[in-house]
């Protein structure tokens, strides 16, 4: 058994399968290739060196060429190790997010129920009962949102994004979502300003997927604007694209965090100071959706000044 386990360590294909990496991105496989190249390099250098002893320039050139090959292979190995390190970071982040963001509403529910039971249900007044039901609703919604986002990401990574494309009226979707967000914006003292160009052409995309992106942009703009402010939402046709943009006067994204903003589970440091809830999955999902639609997504942001998030999708 021990001998079998020992031999399995040399089964490169099995090792690579374990990490879920293609062969050309698997460090074990690349190490073997590098070993072979090193041996070939050493032998050929020896052979070439002895044959062309009178022409050292040729030997130097060939050695240089082989060194280049080795350099490229080590670069690829380094990249694949980075990918493994990134996967490990994601796993830790996943555990952290799930342990905190899922446990927080669970604790709220658990302790609320315990309090109701200890007080005796027959003694509970109507207002207390309403508060209790509101707590149940809010916290179950929080858990549902996180689990849904995790499921979307998991499905996206496993099977890719499946689109049910149809002619989609973006103006209608944006209008609908803005009116649905009004209550949330009002309660946060934020004014939503909508500027939709009239008679926009429809786009052939999956409406349920684009709703995720629009919802994420508007929701973030409201959530990360502190005190009061204006959130401007624009929908326009520009050349052969439909462009959507959400501008806020919120906390903005620090410059050093901007390059990570579309990464899975990433949340900017300053954002954690204002809003402790959040999974860091919304913008990752948004980027994946827009990429799949053949569009482009981006943002401009200044810390303490605000952000403008935009996407454009081609009209086909």
């Amino acid at each position: 058994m021990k001998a079998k386990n020992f031999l399995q360590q040399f089964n490169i294909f099995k090792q690579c399968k374990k990490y879920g990496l293609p062969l050309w991105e698997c460090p074990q496989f690349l190490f073997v290739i590098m070993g072979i190249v090193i041996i070939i390099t050493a032998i050929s250098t020896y052979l070439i060196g002895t044959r062309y002893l009178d022409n050292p320039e040729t030997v130097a050139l060939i050695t240089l060429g082989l060194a280049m090959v080795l350099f490229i292979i080590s670069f690829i190995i380094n990249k694949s190790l980075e990918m493994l390190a990134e996967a490990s970071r994601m796993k830790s982040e996943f555990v952290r997010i799930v342990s905190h963001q899922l446990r927080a509403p669970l604790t709220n529910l658990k302790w609320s129920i315990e309090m109701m039971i200890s007080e005796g249900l027959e003694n509970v007044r109507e207002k207390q009962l309403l508060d209790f039901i509101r707590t149940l609703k809010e916290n179950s919604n929080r858990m549902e949102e996180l689990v849904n986002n995790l499921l979307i990401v998991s499905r996206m990574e496993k099977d890719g994004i499946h689109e049910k494309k149809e002619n989609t009226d973006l103006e209608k979707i944006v209008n609908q979502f803005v009116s649905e967000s009004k209550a949330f914006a009002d309660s946060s003292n934020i004014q939503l300003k909508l500027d939709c160009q009239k008679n926009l052409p429809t786009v052939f995309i999956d409406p349920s997927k684009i709703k995720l992106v629009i919802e994420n942009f508007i929701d973030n703009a409201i959530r990360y604007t502190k005190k009061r402010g204006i959130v401007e939402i624009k929908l326009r046709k520009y050349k052969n694209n439909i462009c959507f943009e959400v501008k806020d006067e919120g906390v903005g994204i620090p410059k050093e965090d901007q390059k990570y903003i579309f990464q899975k589970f990433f949340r900017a440091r300053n954002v954690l100071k204002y809003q402790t809830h959040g999974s860091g999955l919304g913008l990752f999902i948004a980027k994946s959706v827009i990429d799949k639609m053949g569009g482009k997504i981006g943002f401009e942001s200044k810390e303490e000044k605000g952000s403008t998030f935009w996407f454009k999708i081609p009209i086909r």
Partner: protein
Amino acid sequence: MKTILFIEDEATLQKTFGKTLEEEGFKVIPALDGDIGLKLANPPAGGKKPDLILLDLILPRRNGFEVLKEIKGDEETKDIPIIVLTNLETMDNVDRAIELGATTYLVKANYSLREVITKVKQVLGE
């Protein structure tokens, strides 16, 4: 009456746990973020300092570790016992909190309301 400063950003927990503590005879001072918590831990001259602090770690404005460090680093407040009440369970967080001077570290999801009350009373020597 003993006073407990409860630094926690979850409004639901402030309500449920705060109420339970009051029913047990404690005076509860709520703080919804780290900055407010720090101010209330060391009120201006004449103000009464809390007898105990219940501290969450993930907090807006200033996280729990920063609050803990400030309170334990200040001569005026360093003797106030602090119970860390959080949902972060990793050992490095536990070690860091204890190292910074927390009296004990409780993972919310692993305790019932009653058990946390018992711990609070233990720490207060009741």
